[in-house]
């Protein structure tokens, strides 16, 4: 049975703040931060944008680009670490706004930056078991970084939405595996505005351990090696981590460079891997093999093996593509940024 991605869409707010602008406020060396994080700027939501509005825009773009009707969607899962409500699902807002209600199941997921790929796995299982025809998985965030914290340079905003089904599949999901442990590398307590993190601790026992283990498990299970793939997509909290993990696994720069967008838009958390994948799908050819590995602090990684089909050409003709969101930029001063993010109360 051929199950996979039938359509996809993204949304990235048009506002940006450059590393220099933030570094100047905190009297830090912008060049050293840019070189360390491999980030030039990050995306910032407008004052009236949040995870729900970004998820809706991405989901609407996915429906618009696909061939299915929204009423055929049997499940909506929205993954985020910045849902607007502590109690009340973002998924119902998305389902209502794309016209998928009322005959469907819906729920919110939270797993730091990998809640979106967890939604893809759930939908994959529901479609494979014939419980639904199509399922929508969204990963979206307006992530938070405390003033002066290292995260302030990278915490961006954006989202990706994927429709999983059996008809008109543009990329078959041939295999998926996950790797999960209880690792306290990053967290945010209930009611707190900003997250806490373990600084350098987040690298080795967090990101690298899980991303590398999940990817190796997928390669072993599918009896493939890095050279088999045309593209590789990794979660990108900064520019350094995915590059180092990819090289350690044996991938070449040509395979992972097209998915690396963190330098331009920052870490879009639950949107990060999904936006990276959209960037690759927008330029892929039928027959291409893609490896995708997400990462969520706490901690875990989901790894996928995808094969692009002939149908990709139809969806590549449809707007809006990822590129259109990268072209439109409006730069903010730190003062305007603080207002946009509600840092001034």
């Amino acid at each position, binding site marked *: 049975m051929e199950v996979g991605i039938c359509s996809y869409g993204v949304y990235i707010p*048009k506002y940006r703040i450059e590393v220099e602008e933030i570094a100047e406020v905190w009297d830090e060396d912008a060049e050293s931060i840019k070189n360390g994080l491999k980030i030039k700027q990050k995306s910032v939501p*407008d*004052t*009236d*944008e*949040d995870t*729900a*509005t970004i998820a*809706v*825009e991405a989901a*609407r773009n996915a429906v618009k680009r696909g061939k299915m009707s929204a009423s055929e969607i049997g499940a909506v899962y929205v993954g985020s670490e910045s849902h*607007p*409500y502590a109690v009340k699902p973002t998924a119902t*807002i998305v389902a*209502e*706004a794309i*016209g998928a*209600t009322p005959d469907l199941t819906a729920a919110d997921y939270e797993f730091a930056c990998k809640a979106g790929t967890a939604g893809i796995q759930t939908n994959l299982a529901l479609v494979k078991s014939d419980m639904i025809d199509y399922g929508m998985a969204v990963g979206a965030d307006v992530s938070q970084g405390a003033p002066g914290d290292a995260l302030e340079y990278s915490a961006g905003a954006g989202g990706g939405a994927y429709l999983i089904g059996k008809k008109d599949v543009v990329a078959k999901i041939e295999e998926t595996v996950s790797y999960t442990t209880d690792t306290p590398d990053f967290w945010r307590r209930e009611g707190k505005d900003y997250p806490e993190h373990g600084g350098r601790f987040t690298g080795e026992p967090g990101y690298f351990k899980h991303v590398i283990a999940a990817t190796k498990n997928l390669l072993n299970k599918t009896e493939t090696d890095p050279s088999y793939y045309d593209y590789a997509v990794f979660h990108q909290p900064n520019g350094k981590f995915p590059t180092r993990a990819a090289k350690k696994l044996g991938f070449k720069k040509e395979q992972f460079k097209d998915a690396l967008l963190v330098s331009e838009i920052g870490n879009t958390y639950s949107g990060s891997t999904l936006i990276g994948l959209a960037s690759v799908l927008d330029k892929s050819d039928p027959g291409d093999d893609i490896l995708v590995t997400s990462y969520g602090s706490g901690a875990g990684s989901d790894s996928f093996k995808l094969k692009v089909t002939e149908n990709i050409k139809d969806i590549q003709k449809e707007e809006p593509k990822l590129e259109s969101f990268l072209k*439109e930029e409006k730069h903010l001063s730190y003062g305007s940024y603080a*207002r946009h993010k509600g840092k001034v109360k």
Partner: protein
Amino acid sequence: MDQEELLLFIFYLGRFDIITVPRFWRKIVNRYNLLGTKCEECGEFYFPPRNLCPSCRRKGDIETYRFNGTGKLVTYTVIRSAADIHEKETPYILGIVELEEGSRLTSYIIDCDIDDVEIGIKVKPVFRRLGEESEEGLIYYGIKFTPVN
């Protein structure tokens, strides 16, 4: 202006003391998706939706209609002194948009510089936060309009 149109206008002014949660929720599908109505008898479109065509009266044949969403800006005003709930957003633009099908509605015009806005520009809908009842209360979502580049 009928009652629904008046309520929509009051809502955009941020009077969430008048537009209560149940009152907002009753039209939530319409606000999210620009779902209005069309009179199949005379071809007139309505947003907010009307249950009765004021021209055809009992001869009217009212059907649900999903607006395409694109339209043009008929007129606008810049709000510099706003209700408490919108205080942090000033200055912002409130305009009257004429949808392609002909119906007109009041909405925010966003994502543009005030100096760049002109009567007659083409606009398209975007999904945004319209406001919130209070810090603890419901968040209101719906359509705003942005110029088409």
